[in-house]
């Protein structure tokens, strides 16, 4: 028995080979290499080819952590996560409950809510840019042209806001919140479909008798939602929150879509002020600074790991499977 199994072991390895090779080349080696590069001070791919050697050390991490741009990126990313994940989860839950309680146009509404999921995020980002845009204009002059949002604001007698286009004259810190608002709206809107889908699926699996029982006990709608629907949906909610946080930390394409390659309002001196963690990593790679990029990637990984652990810890206490 044992003999035959050892005899045939090479067959098993043969069958596993394609997967092992692919995983090794595209997953295992990159991870190892990332760690290696992050630990070689000032690692640079081109310099490496030229034959330079690098010292082993944590200089990359120190550089990354103390660089102002990186701190800005980290702040942006954390802010986006903390704001968008709760908002999008709550909205998705409400929409899912609403969709579940109507019969009439549920199918149509489901499709509408699901559309962002199947649309290219860069394309949507550009549409957002167009909607929120404002070209020209300064402290004294009226803008040359504005997008639909600013038109609406104007129609109600407001003053156009510089949502996505920075001023030529210089960076205005007060515009940072306007920029952030656009980004948050975009991310929430883009995150909804998947969450609605998951929660709606969960809702449809909840036994109707719980609601009948609650009805007989005279439970108010809010209490029914809060004491019955939410606990019964808690596994789905936990899943949606965890994946939401992970997705939020990896936010990048939305910024590119809305603000372009500059990762911030155009025409400003302080260009990359809307950059995110992933954006920073790309930038570092672009500058041929693979050492710092790897270090940043590992820092991002550590943050996501910690946040997910916290999530799991909380959900263990609160989720009723």
């Amino acid at each position, binding site marked *: 028995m044992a003999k035959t199994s050892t005899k045939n072991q090479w067959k098993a390895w043969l069958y596993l080979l394609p997967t092992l090779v692919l995983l090794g080349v595209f997953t295992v080696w990159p991870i190892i290499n990332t760690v290696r590069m992050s630990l070689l001070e000032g690692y640079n791919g081109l310099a490496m080819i030229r034959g330079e050697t690098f010292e082993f050390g944590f200089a990359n991490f120190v550089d990354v952590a103390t660089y102002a741009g990186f701190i800005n990126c980290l702040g942006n990313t954390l802010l986006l996560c903390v704001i968008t994940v709760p908002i999008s989860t709550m909205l998705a839950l409400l929409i899912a409950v609403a969709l579940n309680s109507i019969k009439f146009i549920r199918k149509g509404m489901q499709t509408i809510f699901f559309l962002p999921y199947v649309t290219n995020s860069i394309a949507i980002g550009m549409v957002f840019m167009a909607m929120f845009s404002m070209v020209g204009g300064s402290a004294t002059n009226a803008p040359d042209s504005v997008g639909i949002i600013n038109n609406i604001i104007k129609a109600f007698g407001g003053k156009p806001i510089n949502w996505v286009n920075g001023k030529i004259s210089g960076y205005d810190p007060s515009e940072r919140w306007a920029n952030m608002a656009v980004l948050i709206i975009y991310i929430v809107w883009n995150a909804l479909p998947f969450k609605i889908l998951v929660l709606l699926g969960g809702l449809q699996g909840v*036994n109707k*008798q*719980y609601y*009948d*029982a609650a*009805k*007989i*006990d*005279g*439970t*108010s709608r809010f*209490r029914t939602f809060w*004491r*019955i629907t939410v*606990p*019964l949906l*808690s596994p789905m909610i936990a899943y949606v929150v965890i994946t939401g946080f992970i997705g939020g930390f990896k936010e990048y394409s939305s910024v590119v879509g809305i603000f372009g390659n500059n990762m911030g309002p155009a025409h400003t001196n302080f260009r990359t002020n809307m950059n995110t963690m992933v954006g920073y990593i790309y930038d570092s790679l672009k500058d041929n600074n693979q050492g710092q990029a790897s270090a940043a990637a590992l820092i991002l990984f550590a943050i996501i790991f910690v946040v997910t652990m916290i999530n799991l810890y909380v959900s263990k206490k609160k989720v*009723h499977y």
Partner: protein
Amino acid sequence: MKVVLQNITKIFASRNKKVKDEVIAVNDFNLEIPDGKLVCLLGPSGCGKSTTLYMISGLQEPSSGKIFFGDDDVTKLSPENRGIGLVFQNYALYPHMTVQQNILFPLQNLKGENKLSKEEMLTRASEAAKLVQIEEFMDRKPSELSGGQQQRVAIARALVKMPRVLLLDEPLSNLDARLRLQTREEIRRIQRRTQITTIFVTHDQEEAMSISDYIVIMKLGVIMQTGKPQWVYDDPANLFVAKFLGAPPINVFTGKVENGKLYIGEECVLDVDGVEDQEVYVGIRPEGFILDKNGKLSTTLTGIDVMGRDISVVSTCESSLNPVVRSIISADEMGNIAGGSSGSSVDHTASADGAEQEKANEDVTVKFNLKPHKVLIFNKETEQRVYFGDQLAAHEQMIAEMEAEGQGYVTHNGPLPREADDVDKKATAPAPKKNIFVRAIDGIKGLFSKKKETAVSADSKAEMTENAPPAVDEAHVEPTAENIEQTAAVVEAMAPSPESAANEPAAATDAAPEVQSAPEAEQQSAPEDEQAATVSESEPVAVEEPVAAEEKPAKAPAKKPAAKKTTTTKKPATTAKKTTTTAKKSTTAKKTTATAAKKPAATAKKSTGTTAKKTTTTAKKPATAKKSTATTKKSTAAKTDKKD
């Protein structure tokens, strides 16, 4: 709190909007449930009992009619304002809350002046928990409890807000048998202690009988009968109720009443005074049989089930609508069946030992007398009860008693609602569904036998017309096997149905008309043969031992061969359905009878009976049979000549 349902009707619209097909789940339901009683809604699945319950709870709105709790009209009231507690079939305990939280939940919903302080809530919850004996599980989640404990938590949750009416929707169906027994006692106990009007839905008649003060039997949304369980059992208003209550179920026979006598098959089994002549169904409770060797009802024994205290005698009877007749007899009388040759009510004609036992049983006739109060007669058309003797007086007394107790007697008087294929099929003894191959083979068999018989009838017709004008001299008719077959078929076709039986005497007076009528009867008999064949396979038919069958015709007066046919045909016909071994027996029997020329007609019939039935299955048989019958025929023909 008294609950009154007035003309409640619930109609569900069809899912398919194009077809205007509505489902009437509950139809014009009138019921008054007295205060503080436990009432069971009982019926087969789909009879609208759960719908009725949900309408009382307010979760479903009746299409028309009114519901009163006491004097309040609650028809339009939402569930939370009705003051009801509902226990769901699968309990619907909130899985994420502990037992205590579950029980507290209804209390926490109370608002305004009803709002309780925390301490009050906890006291109420622990009281409710104590009532159903779950105090020690207060901190557990429902998933950590057994089914019975969950069930009790559900009852506690329903009771904690002190409902005016407690509704239970099949609460025991998820429990195992032992727990079910225990829990239903529990429910009874809790109901007695709290004195809350309780409505209980179940499809289990035993459950309903054992715990309820009143039962309401429903069928297809209509109340069939209400009353105390024992009353309803003893005095069912119609056949449905009789069949639904009782385990083992009531034995139903087809029968008729003639001149104040009740007949099952040919046997007069009981005197029924004051009943008009009519076709009836006769229901006999299993405990209504008395073993008696001179009993009036005879059945064929198929087995005896020993159950300790009682024994259950399983037998078959041709007139029975059930596949078997089950009678329950005290175990003390066991000896009457198994052992005794003397004083036994069973005709022992075969040895009952070892492997022979089963075969032996087949041939044993059991005789019963009937207890009149356990015999229920129902009109065949309406299936309504027909009272006889003392039964009517008892019935009227029961109604008076019920009204005295404030519970109106309700029964259904109109024509009974029927499912499309409910009763009619049973009347014609449905053959169980066979697989396609068997059916195909049956079809082919049928084709063959039809062909053969039409051919036969064609040439016999020719002969008939030749011979008809003069008084038929049977000697002129070629005594072929076919001819005999044909006459046998005639008798078979005629004997079972009463009308043809009525015609028979006329035909019997002289042989000629009967033979003339053969061709037409033949046509009838062909399809009937097929049917008979299928029936015989599905249902054990009373089968007399060939020897016995042989003896009887011998005893019968030899003078009227035709008349004799009518009385005796059944038996040979049924023997014919037996396996080939019996077929052999009967052929050998023929041979013997052929030599003993005294009973010519009977033997001819018998043999031809077998051949006719067995046309395809025993392809070889007919040949041999014909040989023997051909020889028999000649002598027979001669005999009949002489008689004429």
